[in-house]
């Protein structure tokens, strides 16, 4: 494995009963890159993030992060070594304020307590545009803000790798470009991003490489445009040919 691999997944498998959600999945993510994941509904994308984030344990295979085997590491400790994630269906701590939600991230996984932790939480709120809602109980947030909160909490942990699950879903087209800017900013600051998204044009405009999963297996992996042009991907995922220019233009 070369120096620049931040995350490397080897032969990862996971079944729920008879349902195969990951089968012998092997891929690497380079430090600092933006790695996209697409695939039909139920392909196992969220499951893969759950496996990497440690929310569920694999049946087989291994995960290395920064050269260290983390396959058996608990979710909380993975967060501490620098893996952050957002959930597809946002999971805010509804009884805490937005600020407190984010402070959980900065103080626990981020390990910055007290003033440092506050400052980092503050910065994450600022980055995600949530500052105006800092004192709002998270249970009262609407969808967009919940998604932002997912991102803000992940940021506050000071991650090396951030796993995003359909963070743009539900955003209007006008709201997507600012989000893309945010993600680009993340990348610029050296964070590695793994991003699942069905809003293909948004994804393709950011990621360096794209992986398409289907039925728990890797269908295609490589240059985003090539992956999108692959007939299998078109068949199982896109339905029609994907017009990248149209996607970019909007």
């Amino acid at each position, binding site marked *: 494995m070369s120096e620049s691999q931040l995350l490397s997944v080897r032969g990862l498998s996971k079944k729920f009963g008879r349902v195969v959600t990951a089968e012998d999945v092997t891929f690497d993510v380079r430090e600092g890159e933006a790695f996209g994941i697409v695939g039909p509904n139920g392909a196992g994308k969220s499951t893969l993030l759950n496996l990497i984030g*440690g929310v569920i344990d694999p049946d087989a295979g291994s995960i290395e992060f920064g050269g260290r085997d983390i396959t058996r590491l608990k979710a909380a400790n993975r*967060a501490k070594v620098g893996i952050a994630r957002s959930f597809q269906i946002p999971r805010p701590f509804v009884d*805490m304020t937005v600020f*407190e939600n984010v402070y*959980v991230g900065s103080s626990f996984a981020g390990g910055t307590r007290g003033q440092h932790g*506050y400052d980092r939480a503050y910065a*994450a709120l*600022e980055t995600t545009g949530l500052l*105006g809602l800092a004192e709002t109980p998270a249970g009262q947030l609407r969808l967009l803000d919940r998604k932002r909160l997912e991102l803000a909490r992940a940021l506050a942990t000071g991650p090396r790798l951030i796993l995003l699950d359909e963070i743009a879903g539900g955003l209007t087209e006008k709201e997507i470009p600012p989000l893309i800017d945010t993600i680009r900013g993340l990348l*610029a600051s050296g964070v590695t991003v793994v991003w699942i998204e069905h809003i293909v044009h948004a994804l393709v405009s950011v990621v360096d490489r794209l992986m398409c999963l289907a039925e728990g297996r890797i269908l295609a992996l490589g240059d985003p445009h090539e992956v999108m042009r692959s007939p299998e991907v078109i068949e199982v995922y896109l339905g029609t040919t994907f017009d990248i220019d149209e996607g970019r233009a909007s």
Partner: protein
Amino acid sequence: MSLALSDNTAGHRAQVHRSTRASLVGLVVAVIVVVSLAYGPFAFLTKGNQQNLTTLFIYIILGTMWNLLAGYAGMVSIGQQAFIGIGAYGIVYASDILGLGLWIGLALALVISGIVAYLVSFLAFRLSGGYFAIGTWVIAEVIYLLTTQINTLGAGAGISFTAFRGYKPEIRIAVVYWIALAAVVVAVAVTYLLLRSRLGAGFTAVRDDATAAATLGVNVTRSRRIAWVVAAMGCGLAGTLLAMTTLNVQPGSVFKIQWTAFMIFIVIIGGVGTIEGPIIGAIVFYALERYIGDVGFWYLVILGIIAIAMVLFLPKGLWGLISGNGRLRLFPTGYRLTSPLPTPIANGTPDSREGESS
């Protein structure tokens, strides 16, 4: 766009307030109250008063502990009577039977409660929700049934607590009263400090969503275990006080599930998820028992009616009512970001309706 991942870029220092004017006033008042209560037996508290207050203190401890467990850490246990029993039997065993005296007995009883809670947690924490609730109840039942098999503890017949034999009544009552006062201060203070610490935020996070908390680095099991052990030791402490006040420990009494029911009552009528709530709840519960307790069966009927009425008409509890739905906090545990805050953003929700309370 600046990415503020390193601490304190853009020159902002977030100002976070953790206490309010009310809470400072509250602290001062609390200190004055505690000091005068401590002085009370020399001046204005009769034996009866001291005895009554001791009972009240026990209720406050119990309410506070159940609140820590269920209200903050989200573990709805209906088996806390296990630790009341362990505390009560523990102090009798250590003080009387092992002959270690009152103080070591007290300490040992707490340690035993903690150890049992720690061990039990490995089983209990495999369960969640309804499974956890009933599981804890059955665990308490098992501890109860085991206790009744131990002959040195009087088996099913119970045992008298004799460490105070030879004390003059007024001395014993005052000593127990001071212990109870100290205990209640410690219990509330420990709970409060725990909740104000980073762990406090962790508890609430775990309660709201354990999976999300874990991915943010909260060690879910560990933080649950801390709350569980602390709550168990608190209930054990209440158990030792119970033994000191009733001087007679019987398994069917100390291990009965009604204790937990009373804790729930205290917490809910006072207001769940606040430090103040259980204190108010305990006072109300105590007052009910004291002032209508003599009307026999009606007392219990009234207790039942109040329980129902409170839940239906005052879901936030009495403290919710007094504090104007949480605007007044004598024991704040949260984090209020006070500055620098920008003006509300254009298409965002103007958050004036949520109010930047405090």
